[in-house]
């Protein structure tokens, strides 16, 4: 689905991404973890075609990315809702941008809103929602057009731990049905191990890949698995990669 080859990205003097290459297979759930400022958000933006790479290239569905890609759902670090729109019309925003009729996707949107636990809030304005609820709206919005590729930039970053865990399981449920290809940026190692097939561990700026960890735990992953020795082992492996950087 996505191939990244020798990706490098500098902003003037600052090299955000030093060198990055990896593949994301169809239906794969891939997480990127790494210290703050190592270029995770930048990498997502390059994959989405929102920023040009300084060197290297990105292929999505076999075609080199030049300009914003299509059939993608993106969740940003912040909810980015339009304040004048209700929950429902915010979720339907991408449909309007595509120039399609809202009514055609209304049922789908309502279903997603229900799934996200926002039933009854369809007509509320964003300011009437908590931060976590807003972020859930953003996730519904990314899913409304049933894209086969999802780019998620710390979608649960602003949530409290309890909600965050629940949302993680919800995402797993959505993914197990929709089988989207997901590139998921997170700070939480547990979250990465719980959700992913593959974890890309990055070094500090300039970001390079430290290690690619394959998560061979069976699915569906349950909360009880977090105590599983294999789970602990994988989490420790990822953690070691990150911790080692502090020592270096």
């Amino acid at each position, binding site marked *: 689905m996505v191939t990244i080859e020798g990706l490098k990205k500098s902003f003037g003097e600052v090299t955000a991404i030093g060198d990055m290459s990896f593949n994301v297979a169809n239906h794969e759930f891939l997480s990127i973890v790494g210290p703050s400022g190592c270029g995770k958000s930048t990498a997502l*933006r390059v994959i*989405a075609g*929102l920023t040009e790479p300084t060197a290297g290239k990105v292929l999505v569905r076999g075609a080199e990315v030049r300009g*914003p*890609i*299509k059939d*993608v759902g*993106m969740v*940003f670090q*912040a909810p*980015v809702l*339009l*304040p*004048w729109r209700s929950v429902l019309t915010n979720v339907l*925003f*991408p*449909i*309007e*941008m*595509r*120039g399609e009729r809202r009514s055609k996707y209304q049922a789908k949107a309502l279903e997603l809103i229900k799934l996200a636990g926002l039933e009854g809030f369809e007509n509320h*304005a964003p*300011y*009437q929602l908590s931060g976590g609820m807003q972020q859930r709206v953003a996730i519904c919005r990314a899913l409304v*057009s049933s894209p086969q590729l999802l780019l998620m930039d710390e979608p649960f970053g602003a949530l409290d731990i309890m909600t965050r865990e629940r949302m993680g399981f919800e995402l797993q449920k959505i993914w197990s049905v929709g089988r989207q290809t997901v590139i998921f940026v997170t700070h939480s190692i547990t979250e990465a191990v719980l959700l992913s097939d593959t974890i890309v561990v990055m070094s500090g700026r300039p970001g390079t890949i430290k290690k690619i960890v394959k998560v061979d735990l069976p699915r569906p992953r349950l909360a009880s698995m977090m105590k599983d020795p294999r789970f602990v082992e994988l989490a420790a492996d990822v953690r070691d990669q990150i911790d080692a950087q502090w020592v270096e």
Partner: protein
Amino acid sequence: MINALKHLRPFLGFVVLLVVWQVGVRLANFPEYILPAPTVILARLWATRNEQLYHLFVATGFTTVVGLALALVVGVLMALAVVYIKPLKAMIMPLLAAFNSIPKIAVAPLLVIWFGLGAETKIVLAFLLSVFPIFVNSITGLGEIEADVLDLSRLSGGTPWRIFLKVRLINAVPYITDALRIAFPLALVGSIVGEFIAGNVGAGYLVLSGQFNLDTPLVFAALLCITLFATLGITLIGLLENHFVTWKHSTRRR
């Protein structure tokens, strides 16, 4: 009932002022041509009511609203040009800033030469005074969209036209209503100054003729009409804003 009282509260200050004024003038025994009592002003207002309404609505109100409408159209169009044609901004902004620092009222005699003694001069003055705040606020409203919102729109396949209609334009509405609240009184000033210097119609003209005849109650009566008109305009803008813009105040409340 309590709600009704709450709505009356803003008027309470006026009542107090009027009472103090009335009593003060009587006690100090001011001559009428210096400071007439409110009752005298009201009597003069009533006596000249048809004249007042005529001058206010046929002349001043008309030129103010037309000038403001022109400023709205031109201001928003100029902002669009600046927002969509980036190089234009660097070119046009210093020019406009320099232009805006000219005291427009000082240009009024020139406008009389160009546009004559009629309504045109007043419309142009009203326009000149009110266009800048509308232009500046429109630039912010149309131009300063959160980068992520634009990225999201582009990723969803949004064309520039759709992004304009569904993001930029709506984002600009509260900025424009804010600007109108500032621009409306400015346009009114433009009209009145125009009436001071040329022609023989309008609330400004009434003020001036009151001054010529030492008819101070008429001056005050005309001023009162102008103030009521300004209040009416600003209230209308506020009502429009409340109707169309529910979100900005909502976010402010948080």
